[in-house]
């Protein structure tokens, strides 16, 4: 392969249903239902998706949900704050493991 992560591949997502079509249908139906207005608004869900896209570092998802969040009525300030939430959780997740480190160090240390 010439490389990874081609932006035009996002539009080919449905091809994943070429094999295991029943599973793909279940996934896409469920996916659509997840993002409908519910207890959370579609805009709030889009901002969550944008944050998660950064946490899992998926360039397809970042492209898709940057546009989707704008289309759902979010502005760039709100989207930037969502990315900071993702970054804070990623950073915090590393840092809170420091307690595990301290537990071990305390257990074996003098």
């Amino acid at each position, binding site marked *: 392969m010439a490389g990874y992560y081609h932006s035009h591949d996002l539009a080919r997502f449905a091809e994943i249903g070429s094999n295991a079509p029943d599973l793909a249908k279940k996934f896409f139906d469920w996916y659509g239902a997840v993002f409908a207005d519910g207890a959370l*608004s579609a805009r709030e869900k889009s901002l969550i998706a944008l944050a998660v896209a950064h946490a899992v570092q998926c360039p397809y998802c970042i492209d898709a949900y940057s*546009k989707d969040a*704008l*289309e759902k*009525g979010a502005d*760039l300030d709100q989207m930037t704050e969502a990315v900071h939430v993702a970054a804070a959780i990623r950073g915090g997740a590393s840092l809170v493991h420091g307690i595990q480190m301290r537990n071990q160090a305390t257990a074996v240390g003098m």
Partner: protein
Amino acid sequence: MIPLAAVTEQRAQLAALPLPREFHDAAAASGWWPLTPAAITTLQINVGKLCNQTCRHCHVDAGPDRREVMTRETMMLCLDALARESALTTVDITGGAPELNPNFRWLVDRATALGRHVMDRCNLTVLMTAGQADLPEFFARRQVEVVASLPHYRATSTDTQRGAGVYEKSVEALKRLNAVGYGDGRSGLRLVLVTNPVGAFLPPAQASLEAEWKRELLRLHGIRFDALYCITNMPISRYLEWLGESGNLERYMQRLVDSFNPATIDGVMCRSLISVGWDGRLYDCDFNQMLDLPVEQSASRHIRDFDLAALARRRIAVGRHCFGCTAGAGSSCGGSIE
């Protein structure tokens, strides 16, 4: 840069795009061809291109330097048509900033005296300009419906689209409208906000967004309003220019075509209104007006010859820009159609 101020250049640029189908084909495939009016209930009067703002998405190319302003004589012809045709129950006044027309208040007075429901398409900041501070009271006394542009309930997107400092002035103007009773849900003084996307994408779902806007404008500024209209940006004039310069034109038009929704055609604005230009010429809508596409020859083409029966029989002129009104949930002067 392409001289897009010339209407022929705009039409040529739209025509040159490689799109998979034309609007009339899409309409015909849905059983809507030829496109004809429903009951015509609204006279939409564009009183001129003069405006105190120069918004980046403006399909009118309005601004402080424009001199095309409707005269009192042409307004009188509009009022004559209204007096003759009781079916025209609503007068929808637009611009530019319509309030800057020196005869704006005279027109509103005469139209309300004829018993018509008057709507003013207001950019909000005009309320903060010299000599306009009493507009909220003027509107309230005449029960004018205020339809006000605000791209977002926060500053960033609003100022990006409409100019630095517009958000702050808009918030102050909304507070002044609230102070005389607009948006309180009791006085009958209806305040509608209109949002257009700040970029090359479709507007959000109107019902979902309205609840959020009401919550946030109340929380941030104590502002109340009655309804939110989500309107699609049309590939005309300044917005067309921006689409071209930013490399978004073909993709945006493709998006509009791909999002064609036949269920929206029933409610498109051209089926229920007649648009009058600043010089009295008649159009199917404000967008056709800006592209210089007049109503068909067999209908009356100037307000002095206004013939509602002939206009009701006309075929509506369409073009590729019409995909803007039928994309997704649709877009009309009253926001989403579905």
